[in-house]
């Protein structure tokens, strides 16, 4: 990257070059991410359409491909209603916090060997920390709207988010025990070998728990009680319109993609080729790692959409029961099992 851009970078004084390089890298993540978010909404409508034997958006542009842009431009020109009873400052801080939290976690996500903006040693902790910051946005949005639906939606959403965050944290402890590193790149490297060395198999319960918690964390169906459109209309963001609403949508889909990326990194070998260690390895060696990474993210995103088309919504008490009484005990048991396995060097997976 630095060599490739060196003629351009030489235009800038010595001290600024690094900063410019970082900014370019960040733009290379944020702008494609926004486009990916736009097309995830399109893909969602299209896929759910096909699953329900209809076509989905197909009028705006060829195959409906301009639909997400039409939506964004429409929302840009929509009035931003400021509820008279709302606390104005907090009302507009909340969506900014949520989108901020959904974006900054991408700083430590590696797309290929060395392709990461910030190669931080405590990457996993960082991801957990900024992931948790989104809960502030939800609570503040619900409270500041000064509407009963929003308040209840915000409380419900925050309570179930933190419950599933625990399950996620415990699942990550399992990944840590296997990889012995908090650095996301090291975690992917520790999975090299073959497809059975990826942590999805040795840590199968953790993988399942992590992905289910991820779906719940992002308020996606079947865990979308926070915005349950038929009960509390739209939950914590019921009072938001226009661009305020766009920020919430953007954050939701960006964190969906983030959860998919993190699941791919921690359980599905990140940028590693699935043919590693088999006779097909050399035949597929020409495919760059980033393509594998994107393919894994796409498959996991498809699962998100598939869940939405398939499952009915959980009831709130069922959600809390699943989080506290099923997922957390499962991870606790697996931490003990894995601790013993690591100590006795059992199996081929725990070195």
């Amino acid at each position: 990257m630095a060599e490739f851009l060196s003629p351009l970078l030489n235009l800038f004084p010595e001290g600024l070059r690094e900063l410019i390089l970082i900014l370019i890298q960040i733009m290379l993540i944020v702008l494609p991410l926004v486009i990916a978010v736009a097309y995830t909404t399109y893909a969602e409508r299209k896929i759910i359409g096909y699953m329900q034997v209809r076509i989905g958006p197909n009028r705006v542009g060829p195959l409906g491909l301009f639909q997400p842009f039409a939506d964004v431009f429409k929302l840009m020109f929509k009035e931003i209603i400021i509820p008279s009873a709302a606390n104005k400052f907090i009302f507009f801080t909340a969506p900014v916090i949520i989108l901020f939290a959904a974006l900054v976690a991408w700083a430590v996500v590696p797309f290929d060997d060395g392709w990461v903006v910030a190669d931080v040693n405590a990457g996993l902790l960082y991801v957990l920390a900024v992931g948790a910051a989104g809960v502030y946005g939800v609570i503040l949005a619900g409270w500041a709207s000064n509407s009963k639906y929003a308040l209840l939606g915000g409380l419900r959403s925050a309570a179930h988010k933190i419950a599933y965050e625990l399950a996620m944290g415990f699942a990550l402890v399992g990944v840590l025990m296997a990889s012995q590193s908090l650095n996301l790149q090291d975690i992917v490297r520790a999975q090299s070998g073959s497809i059975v060395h990826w942590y999805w198999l040795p840590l199968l319960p953790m993988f399942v728990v992590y992905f289910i918690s991820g779906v719940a964390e992002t308020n996606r169906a079947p865990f979308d009680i926070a915005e349950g459109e038929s009960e509390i209309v739209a939950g914590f963001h019921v009072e938001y319109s226009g661009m305020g609403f766009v920020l919430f949508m953007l954050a939701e889909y960006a964190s969906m993609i983030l959860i998919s990326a993190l699941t791919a990194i921690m359980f599905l070998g990140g940028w590693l080729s699935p043919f590693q260690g088999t006779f097909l390895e050399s035949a597929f060696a020409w495919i760059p790692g980033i393509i594998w990474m994107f393919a894994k993210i796409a498959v996991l995103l498809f699962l998100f959409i598939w869940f939405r088309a398939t499952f009915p919504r959980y009831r709130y008490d069922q959600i809390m029961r699943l989080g506290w009484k099923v997922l957390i005990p499962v991870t606790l048991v697996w931490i003990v099992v894995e601790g013993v396995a690591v100590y006795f060097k059992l199996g081929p997976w725990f070195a």
Partner: protein
Amino acid sequence: MLENYLPVLVFFVVALGFSLVMLLTGFILAPRRPDKEKDSPYECGFAAFEDSRMKFDVRFYLVAILFIIFDLEIAFLFPWAVVLDEIGGFGLVAMGLFLLILVIGFIYEWKKGALEWE
């Protein structure tokens, strides 16, 4: 070591700027025609009959407390998990005891019904 965090800081600034600019475009481009009825709290068409700054269920508080306890537990588990290979059997047993104490607390809250929602 710490200089690895410079990109994170820059990312913070960019993300914040991006979010604010997004919000700002809405304010610049969109019309603004306030109306008393339009700006009133949305309650499915009815007039709001009291303020939403109301009492809420104590169980949300309970969940938050439990979250703090278990999040602290995760904070203790992380460093242990990273060096598990080096600390050997003693470390394993020590964390086993710690987990056991927490599991006893967990069973207690389960039996007490702190996790029930009906």
